[in-house]
């Protein structure tokens, strides 16, 4: 267990098979490795991400749906000594809070943004997300997402890579490869500019998949639509210490 995990709030509240705890483990290890327990402020959104509000021995704040980025922008601008982590889902980042994401990326706000992409609105019961794949069944696309009616999945990381300031760091990792993910997270935390790590994650509860199907989806299907890797590392010469 990462040292920065708060033991009093474990076992955690996520569903069995959920990808969140894997990402939160990688994040915990990244914070441990950097020795930044006294510096990192953990901000979380609405949706399943809010279940992490007391996950760490880190000062944490939970806000409204899509608004984690502006809260941390407001904080970081007046407290540059802190390292701010915005932890949110694909709905918060790419739908209801998309304009905050774009504006923060283009203004080069030094907020480390982590987006959990599980292709579904999970907490509210499995509706279509901006990231839902074509043909994927959800509660609001019960016959499968029809791109002619609801568009194609939003490629948030590619969008941010295109609109962010030159120093931004943008990567897409997966909970299926924690070693790579942790590397991306450390780089994102250290980047003194805007950072975004989109993380492909699992939701067997709403996908209605068994363990083998869940893993098949996250390892094989999702990366076909969402290629993994570092999309931008403009600030690679600069490192927050």
């Amino acid at each position, binding site marked *: 267990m990462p040292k*920065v995990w708060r033991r009093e709030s474990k076992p955690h509240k996520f569903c069995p098979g959920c990808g969140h705890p894997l990402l939160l483990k990688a994040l915990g290890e990244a914070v441990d490795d950097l020795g930044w327990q006294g510096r990192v402020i953990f901000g979380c959104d609405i949706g399943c991400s809010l279940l992490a509000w007391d996950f760490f021995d880190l000062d944490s704040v939970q806000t409204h749906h899509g608004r984690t980025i502006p809260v941390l922008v407001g904080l970081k601008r007046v407290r540059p000594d802190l390292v701010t982590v915005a932890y949110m889902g694909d709905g918060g980042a790419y739908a209801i809070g998309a304009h905050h994401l774009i504006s923060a990326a283009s203004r080069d706000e030094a907020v480390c943004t982590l987006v959990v992409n599980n292709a579904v609105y999970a907490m509210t019961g499995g509706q279509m997300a901006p990231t839902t794949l074509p043909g994927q069944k959800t509660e609001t696309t019960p016959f499968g997402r029809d791109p002619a009616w609801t568009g194609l999945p939003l490629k948030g990381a590619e969008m941010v890579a295109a609109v962010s300031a030159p120093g931004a760091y943008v990567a897409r990792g997966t909970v299926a490869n924690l070693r790579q993910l942790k590397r991306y997270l450390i780089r994102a935390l250290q980047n003194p500019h805007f950072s975004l790590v989109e993380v492909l994650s699992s939701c067997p509860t709403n996908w209605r998949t068994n363990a083998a199907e869940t893993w098949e989806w996250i390892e094989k299907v999702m990366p076909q639509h969402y290629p993994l890797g570092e999309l931008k590392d403009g600030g690679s010469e600069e490192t927050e210490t």
Partner: protein
Amino acid sequence: MQPVIEGTRRAFLTGNEVVAWAALAAGAEVMYGYPITPQNEIMHHWSRLAARYGRKFLQTEDELSAGYATLGAVLGGVKAFTATAGPGHVLMQEPLAMAEMMALPIVVVITQRGGPSTATVIYSQQEVNMACFGGNGEGFRLVYSVDGLQELFNYTLKAFGMAWRYRLPVFVLGDGYQAKMRGAVTLYDPATAGVETGEAKPLLGGPGVPGKERPPAHLRNTYNLEEELLAVLQEKAAFFDALSERVAEHEQEAAPGAKVLLVAHGIVASAARAAGRRWRQRGEAVGFFRPITLRPFPARALVRAAEGAAAVLVAESAYGQLERLVRTALYGSQVPIYPYQRPGMGITPEELEEEVGKLLAGRDLARAAEG
């Protein structure tokens, strides 16, 4: 910190400039804002003052962001404020609900404009409901309705003090007329004048390593169970009710004892005050009552002021937003309440003089006086 105003200084300023000076004198470190008329010059003036006095300004992508960023700043332990109006105020209510729930000390200046919707950029008193009870909440906030440029300065200073002392969101409710009018104001250093402007403390990122040297700050506005939420809200309600008696403010003239009591807030109070004085000069017992805090509303004071009155005339540049507060406060009293409503329009002393005249001459009043 070196005071930005040494002693006192007379200045000839617009209301929006006054707000910027007051926030500066109160020690605000940052303003986050988004353009909307008639608030804009607060940002214009602040961004110039900020450069001169080492403060910060950021133009955000919308009022949601401005409000939430202001919350972020106060979480970090600095005094911060924003300003908006009309449709921007609608958006601002979302972060305000979070401030209400989490007891976050932000200051919001509202320069009311016409509504509903985009309406006019000029003036109204139609944002009373929203300032007092906006958002999905219970109205755990302070709302000061100011009347004139000097009060804009005084109450903006005070708003910071109250926000940080009692840990809740505070509104300074102005309007487009007061924002744009220019006049003589006395600026002063709040510390010298003994005006409390609050002491900012970090709610996140304070000294010590969380989990090692101190417990982590885990701030949330979400609860799992009805019982959990109820307990939180009962505590907040008890705190707010106890606070209400201490912080409710009003102004009155020739009341109780008035035959007709004029009630108005904000800049309409200037007209009501003048109309009352003119009638009193003619020997008529016309009183004046003005709630300064609309939330909490000075209900007891109004009940006392209306004792023995034959009529209460409620004047406002809105369609009954003040009247509803007055009716709630006077519930159980037999005094008839007459509304004078001009939504989105200014109200002059002459208009109110005439309205009072009608009441004094009217059958209703004669009947009421006969008992």
